């Protein structure tokens, strides 16, 4: 835990800097009491503290990322490391074992080579911890002294502090861009590697999905990586079955809640719907696998379907539809509420009944918003993981029968990445390619939906 030690050290040093800067400002004030300081003493303190804390935090982040690598490098130069096997996997296992013992995470070594490395590891860790502490102190003293020496009665500490604060605010908002870039970079990088082994044509247009993680990585068979059955399964479960459940139920719930329900009912029914949205998807998945799927299988068997699967697309789709209901309902709620009251009153004044008003006036007027809501719901359904992981199967099937077992993109991502596969194998890398496709599709759906909503809202303003 050397990172938390350095963090505590940083906080302590920044506090010391704050006190020193403030004391300095007070001494200016008492030295020439007639003359006002350009900033309050607290701001002098903050100025020094920020000058110490910000560089230290940057250093700490870099250090905790690179120090373990440096430690390993140091250990590898040790003579005891000379007779390590060159084979990468085994070598890493031995190193990991020695490190675990050296840091006290485990008490035993099973490999004789690892035992020899424990002491070098311990020494290297201690050495780098010392280097880390010394570097922290050095940076703190240098930055703190620089800031401290700039303090003067005329020093505009507040302006300087506020400039730093604004920079920190800007950095915080840049995290969102960095995350997006991180997602894109990690997906694109691995996807390109995947397409180096498997042709994109095979992947996007092939109809046979049966990756073999045991096959040699170099001679991967492109015909086993056809993702069409996965895309079909995803669309069938997420965009067809789930929406058949979610759209009517969600839309009618929203209509009832906004147009018919008494306020006292609405007060109870709306939170009840919101609870549906708050249930974790792993609970839905368990419900689907434990209760819904067997019930559907039994029902199908009693109707005379011979080979009804216990992992049917129907079970996953139904439960996913239930999960999406509150989402569709609240989107429809918003867009119906956005229709001007005058349109509704006009229709009622012409003698239309309430339901005619809703069907002929409100729904058509709210349609863009409802369509956008449905698109967002689809994007959420096809990205949903746990329900399908637990209730759908891993067997890829290109079929239109809802009682068949099917698999989806997210199921395959989980299946490919939770095995023991290495990152040089197309079966593992295919997960990133699937993730990339998923990312692009959901992005497109969200983008179009948000555009539609934006345009629709402007229509009545």
């Amino acid at each position, binding site marked *: *835990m050397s990172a*938390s030690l350095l963090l505590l050290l940083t906080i302590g040093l920044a506090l010391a800097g704050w006190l020193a800067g403030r004391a300095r400002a007070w001494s200016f004030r008492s030295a020439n009491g007639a003359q006002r300081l350009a900033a309050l003493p607290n701001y002098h303190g903050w100025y020094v503290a920020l000058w110490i804390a910000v560089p230290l935090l940057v250093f700490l982040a870099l250090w905790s990322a690179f120090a*373990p690598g440096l430690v390993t490098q140091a250990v590898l130069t040790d003579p005891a490391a000379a007779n390590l096997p060159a084979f990468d996997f085994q070598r890493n296992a031995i190193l990991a074992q020695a490190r675990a013992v050296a840091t006290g995470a485990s008490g035993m070594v099973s490999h004789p080579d690892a035992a020899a490395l424990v002491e070098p590891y311990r020494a290297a860790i201690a050495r780098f911890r010392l280097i880390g502490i010394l570097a922290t102190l050095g940076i703190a003293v240098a930055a703190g002294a620089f800031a401290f020496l700039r303090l003067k009665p005329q020093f505009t500490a*507040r302006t300087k502090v506020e400039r730093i*604060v*604004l920079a*920190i*605010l*800007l950095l915080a908002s840049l*995290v*969102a861009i960095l*995350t*997006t870039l991180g*997602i894109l970079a*990690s*997906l694109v*990088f*691995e996807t390109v590697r995947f397409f180096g082994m498997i042709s994109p044509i095979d992947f996007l247009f092939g109809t046979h999905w049966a990756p073999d993680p045991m096959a040699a990585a170099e001679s991967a068979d492109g015909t086993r990586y056809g993702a069409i059955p996965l895309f079909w399964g995803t669309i069938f479960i997420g965009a067809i079955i789930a929406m058949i459940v979610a759209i009517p*139920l*969600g*839309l*009618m*719930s929203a209509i*009832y809640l906004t147009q*018919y329900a008494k306020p006292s009912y609405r007060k109870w029914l709306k939170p*009840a719907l919101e609870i549906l949205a*708050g*249930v*974790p998807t*792993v*609970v*839905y998945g*368990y*419900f689907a*696998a*434990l*209760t819904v799927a067997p019930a559907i299988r039994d029902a199908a068997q009693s109707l005379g379907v011979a080979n009804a699967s216990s992992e049917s697309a129907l079970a996953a789709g139904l439960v996913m539809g*239930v999960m999406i209901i*509150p989402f569709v309902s609240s989107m429809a709620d918003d867009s119906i509420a956005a229709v001007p009251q005058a349109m509704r009153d006009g229709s009622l004044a012409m003698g239309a*009944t*309430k*339901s*005619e008003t809703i069907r002929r006036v409100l729904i058509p007027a709210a349609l863009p918003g409802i369509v956008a809501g449905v698109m967002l719901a689809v994007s*959420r359904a096809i*990205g*949903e*993981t*746990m329900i399908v*992981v637990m209730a759908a199967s891993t067997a890829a099937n290109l079929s239109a029968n809802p009682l068949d077992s099917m698999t989806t993109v*997210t199921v395959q*991502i989980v299946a490919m*990445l*939770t095995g023991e596969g290495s990152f040089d194998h197309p079966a593992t890398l295919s997960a*990133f390619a699937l*993730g990339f496709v998923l*990312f692009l599709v*959901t*992005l497109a759906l*969200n983008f179009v939906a*948000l555009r539609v909503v934006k345009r629709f809202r402007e229509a009545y303003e």
Partner: protein
Amino acid sequence: MSDAAPLPPSRTPTRTPAFEARLKKRYRAEKRFKWLGLGAILVSVAVLLFLLTTMVVNGASGFQRAEVQVPIDFTQAGLSIDPTASDQAEIMRSLEGQGLPQVVEFFAAKSLGEQAASELSGDAWREVGTAIIDDPSLLRRTETLALPAGSDLAAGLDGEGSPQDRALAAQLKNDGKLKRAFDPGFLSRSDATDPQAVGIWGALKGSMLTMFVTLLLAFPIGVLAALYLEEYAPKNRWTDLIEVSINNLAAVPSIIFGLLGLAVFLWIFPNLRSAPLIGGMTLALMTMPVIVIAGRNAIKAVPPSIRDGALAIGASPVQVVFHHVLPLALPGILTGTIIGMARALGETAPLLMIGMRAFVATPPSGFTSPATVLPVQIFLWSDEIDRGFVARTSAAIIVLLLFLLVMNGLAIYLRNKFEKTW
């Protein structure tokens, strides 16, 4: 002038029989439509109630376990507590060395019969050991202890399993030696291979550590970003880009964040696989956009007159925001944060990606030790073949749902308490 002029042929009376029939039909359609709406919402609520009832009915027995009453005469056993031992684990080892497992098995066989004794849970002696450590005077008397039965016997008690198990369980039950009892250890133990011996404390602690990291990262970054975008950001291409990426991140499937964590965080920190630190960082990226969006709405709701008033008496823009706007917006931001954290608490898929699905039998000791979290534990148990895990899984789900209920309740309470109209 006295007679009413006959109606012109174009103005036929409105209330003709055909009109009445049409009107009736329209009213029927109206009623049907209304009932359809009510039906839709009732179906949704019914599904929710069905889900909750299933979990509670299944999970109620998950807080229990099958226990066997075993009288043990410790005076005969000749056990002693090692006075030099410094901690519990060492005392336990010394008791094991003195033959505690055999002692337990001997007395079990004596009171229950050979067959039943072999059906005792393999970890039963550990509970005896813990009881001895808690109360050393036990070693000087005879005590009847309730010990966990093995999974076969537990299944037999539930009317499942092989006929022999069922017969044995029925016989023991008639003798009053086998019964289901509330199992306080379910909340204080960790994962195990035997459903009789599992607990959720390890997963709960992992969840808490992960949530702590998430909060520590997502809250400051989210609030600061919201402040920047709402209060200072100039309207230009850069801020548009930030805004678009925040809105998109809020809608990106969670599994994509798992892929990011796997490819980036585990590439930087390869030794921290399945650690709460990495899980927390991954979930923080997912939660941050939620907090930014909630924070911006809360900040937007603070009336401009407050800013103008502060500026008018000489506060700088930064002072306005940190002394006036932020305190007023904080309840709204906190509500959004709690909702985002509740979502992160129930999240499973991204944590599967970064390897938190490993079997972890000891509670995590810190942010960098291997851990699992409650939803992942539920997922792992749902995969187990042993029937005993069904009840345990549902019990864990009840605990998870209770936590979420408390968090959402807190958010609603905060919203109602601090809701202000200026």
